[in-house]
């Protein structure tokens, strides 16, 4: 039915090339057309395996389509389209090319049917995305980008090692359920975990995303982590370990988010927290849970992109995304404010917004599998999300104390992009069946029953009440110009702190050993030259008698030996 079965990353890569050689309007048109056409193309492609090649005796499946990958495929196209619109005003070839490559790599990874292909796109994701951070062209962004690059490449290398172990164990590179048996599984899980921002591996995200360009962050928020979620869902569904990991992920970032000043950084923490929900879903692994995770990924992409877009717009207009410097912007950016509130409502999972329809699936799945404490943690995180994102973001940026900043509304293309995603957030919230039909498993699920709605509303409103109460009592943490320590402290402060003295010590030892050796060597040379040099003992013209003496000595030696040996 569809003659050409192009892997979805191909249009994006071609697009990237075309962007490189085109300018102005044409370039914009290409950038817009690629996701649209790609999405239509994907729509036509039947499920199944479309490409097969042989490499070193292993079957490679670079293009495999099934329902799980399709969900991510569609949402990536949509997100790419929105992000492209959002970034239309940018005139930076590097960013544009790289964002296309980035989106393409994500698609490639999602449709990869084997671990080697996955690895290739895994690394391409890294290489293309880091330029979105560097594109800020500040020293800080450069440093953050380097750290980002190192950690991401580490993930790739571990994935490669894991894949090789896997191939060794299984005799196949096919990317199916992997599980935690053997070293291979653990290595691959760690690789996925790094990209998925598992606790203690999450700092690259917090560190890197806020340093990217306003438009770059939007792209970043969409792809990398969701590819990781997809990979987890594919490789480790039903791994109980992930439930606890996910639960931790939902809870611990919110404490950091509460006290964080940089609003984009707050969003990054919230991103980790939301990923936690998906990881829990993957960990539970029932069809409902997997559906929940996939659905949550979809909705999360939309609202998190929306939130990042609003913050990006604020940053674009005001030059800052720090809570301590903003406030009262609703006056000059009313549309942005509105969209931000929609996004905030979605992430907080208010009924009729997209977050609600996906998050509730995961919660129910958790409960039905009997993970009581995990459930408690999740609803704690659900309540908390309202604090640190649902209220905090719009409140500090647009309301709160008037910072006196007066600016203009965001550019039209940004507004359109935000409008589309806001619309989608609401649409999915109101009419979730659209989303549910796409999910990997067919299950009849309806989020809108009285129990859920009421429980959720209670949770959220009382959470809001707590906010109001704390705020009025002056107990809410003030916005302070500061950085808060996180895991990255270990490698930004502690590790250099340890390594530098060690290095200094090693260098010192090395230098002293070297100098000792050189001293010894020089002495040796001196000794040599003293004896062998032009005026040395051995090369001087000696008086004749000297040699004759040697002759006598040698002769006596021989004579002595002769007398010893003669019978």
């Amino acid at each position: 039915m569809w003659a050409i079965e192009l892997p979805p990353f191909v249009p994006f890569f071609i697009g990237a090339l075309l962007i490189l050689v085109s300018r102005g309007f044409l370039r914009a048109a290409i950038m817009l057309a690629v996701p649209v056409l790609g999405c239509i193309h994907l729509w036509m492609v039947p499920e199944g395996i479309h490409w097969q090649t042989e490499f070193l005796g292993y079957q490679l499946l670079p293009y495999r389509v099934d329902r799980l990958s399709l969900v991510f495929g569609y949402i990536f196209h949509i997100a790419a389209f929105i992000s492209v619109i959002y970034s239309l005003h940018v005139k930076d070839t590097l960013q544009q090319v790289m964002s296309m490559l980035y989106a393409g790599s994500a698609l490639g990874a999602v449709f990869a049917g084997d671990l080697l292909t996955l690895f290739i796109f895994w690394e391409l994701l890294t290489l293309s995305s880091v330029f979105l951070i560097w594109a800020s062209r500040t020293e800080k962004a450069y440093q953050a980008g380097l750290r980002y690059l190192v950690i991401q490449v580490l993930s790739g290398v571990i994935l490669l090692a894991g894949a090789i172990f896997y191939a060794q164990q299984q005799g196949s590179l096919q990317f199916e359920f992997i599980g935690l048996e053997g070293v291979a599984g653990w290595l691959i899980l760690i690789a996925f975990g790094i990209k998925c921002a598992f606790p203690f591996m999450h700092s690259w995200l917090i560190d890197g995303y806020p340093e990217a360009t306003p438009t770059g962050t939007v792209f970043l928020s969409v792809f990398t982590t969701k590819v990781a979620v997809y990979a987890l869902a594919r490789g480790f569904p039903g791994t109980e370990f992930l439930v606890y990991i996910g639960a931790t992920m939902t809870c611990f970032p919110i404490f950091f988010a509460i006290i964080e000043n940089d609003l984009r950084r707050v969003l990054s923490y919230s991103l980790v927290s939301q990923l936690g929900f998906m990881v829990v879903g993957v960990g539970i692994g029932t069809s409902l849970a997997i559906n929940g995770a996939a659905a949550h990924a979809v909705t999360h992409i939309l609202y998190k992109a929306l939130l990042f877009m609003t913050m990006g717009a604020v940053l674009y207009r005001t030059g800052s995304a720090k809570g301590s410097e903003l406030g009262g912007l609703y006056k000059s950016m009313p549309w942005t404010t509105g969209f931000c509130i929609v996004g905030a409502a979605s992430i907080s999972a208010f009924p009729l917004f997209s977050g609600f329809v996906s998050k509730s699936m995961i919660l129910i799945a958790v409960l039905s599998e009997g993970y009581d404490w995990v459930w408690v943690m999740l609803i704690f995180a659900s309540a908390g999300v309202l604090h640190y994102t649902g209220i905090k973001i719009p409140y500090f940026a647009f309301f709160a104390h008037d910072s006196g900043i007066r600016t203009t509304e965001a550019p039209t293309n940004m507004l359109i992009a935000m409008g589309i995603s806001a619309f989608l957030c609401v649409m999915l919230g109101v009419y979730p069946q659209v989303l549910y039909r796409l999910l990997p498993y067919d299950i009849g699920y309806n989020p809108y029953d009285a129990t859920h709605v009421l429980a959720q509303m209670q949770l959220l409103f009382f959470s809001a009440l707590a906010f109001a109460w704390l705020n009025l009592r002056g107990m809410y943490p003030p916005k302070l110009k500061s950085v808060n320590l996180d895991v990255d402290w270990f490698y930004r402060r502690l590790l250099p702190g340890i390594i530098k003295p060690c290095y200094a010590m090693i260098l010192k030892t090395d230098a002293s050993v070297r100098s000792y050796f050189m001293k010894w060597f020089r002495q040796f040379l001196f000794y040599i030259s003293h004896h062998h040099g032009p005026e040395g003992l051995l090369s001087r013209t000696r008086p004749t008698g000297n040699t004759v003496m040697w002759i006598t000595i040698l002769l006596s030696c021989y004579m002595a030996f002769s007398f010893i040996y003669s019978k």
Partner: protein
Amino acid sequence: MLATHLPVLQVIIPLLAAPLCVLLQHPRMVWYFALLVSAAAFVTSVLLLQQVLETGEISYALGGWAAPWGIEYFIDSLNAYLLLIVTSISTIVLLAAQTSLAKELPDDRHTFFYIAYLLCLAGLLGIVATGDAFNVFVFLEISSLSSYALIALGKSRKALIASYQYLIMGTIGATFILIGIGLMYMATGTLNMQDLALRLADIPESRTVYAAFAFFIVGVCIKLALFPLHQWLPNAYAYAPSVVTAFLAATATKVAIYVLIRFMFTIFGVDFFTTTGPWQNMLLVLALFGILTASTVAIYQNNVKRLFAYSSVAQIGYMILGFSIGTAGGLIATLLHLFNHALMKGALFMALAAVTYRVGSVELESFRGLGKRMPWTMASIVAGGLSLIGVPLTVGFISKWYLIVALLEKGWWFVVGLILLGSLLAVIYVWRILEAAYFSPPENNPDETPEIREAPLSILLPVWILVFANLYFGIDTRLTVDVSRLIAQGFFGVSP
């Protein structure tokens, strides 16, 4: 008819030709004459070698008195091999003598030079050709006395001192050999080498034989400049006229080594050498010391001739090392290196003659920038130097290869290591010259010394003959290896 008299002709031609030079006063004429004589000797030696390879050993009774009463000239493959080396080098060196000497000797001394040269040649050939022990001493003295004279012809007054020192030591060495021979005669009552060998094997080992051995070996070691008895050599080589250095370096020490081999293996016998007493180890240790010390000293020399003289001491160490292994393999290595070292040192000292001819000095300083001005000369030094180091496809590699193989047969890994260390030292001292020649700018402006250009063909030609031989015998080793093998087989009875 003549073919039967080849052994004596070999010696007698240069010996008789020497006084004839007096008649030819003109330098050029003497040169032609000497060249002719040397060439004749060369042809003779080639014929002899051919004959020996075809029919085996040749015994020639001088004056018709049969050995052991009469004096016998005895040529086997070893002798023929040595004769070939000596005559070929002598001829090639003579090719350049005229041009080179023109700058180093006043015209009236030329005749005298050629007389001494031919005498020296005759002496060396006599040592090799004779089969009589006492005759060895006589020829040794002939060659020595003439070489003292040749060295004293050097331009610098230091040549006189060098010659004097050489004279003292050479005389002591020769006298020691004389004592050794006398003691042997005392023990056996014969002077003929073959006879000596037979009788020494019969009589019980006595102190007389041991004393003979001790005197003899020390005497020979002085002549072949084994460390630490080498002290006459650097100065003698450094201050002698260039052609003399080339000739002596390539032949004199080789002949001394021949004497060592002949007396040790033919007369005293392999068993005496290897089984009784620490002779082997003593030589081995001295050889190793020689290799390392002399190579190191060479690194520090600023006079290139002296540098190569020390290198010769080191190279002699290699030969003695192979000898001291006391196996057929070791002997092959020694014999190969004998030949190969003659080629490389011949080439190098001849190239230095070219440098002396144009630059007037062989101080390292004056080599700066010569790579461009005297490309062919310097190229020959490169080739000779590489050979000295033992780079493959040069003769140096071949002998080093056989030496190491012989050592490995014995399992002496440690010695192999030291030998290679010696090679590395050779790299350094050779490299010093090359760096000066190719990679250092000339000290003074080239415009100021425009006369420094490529050496004349008459010097370059012999240099390149030797360089070519260096390469040829490094690639086609049939002649040298086969002959060496044959000789070793003669002594050890087995083909390695």
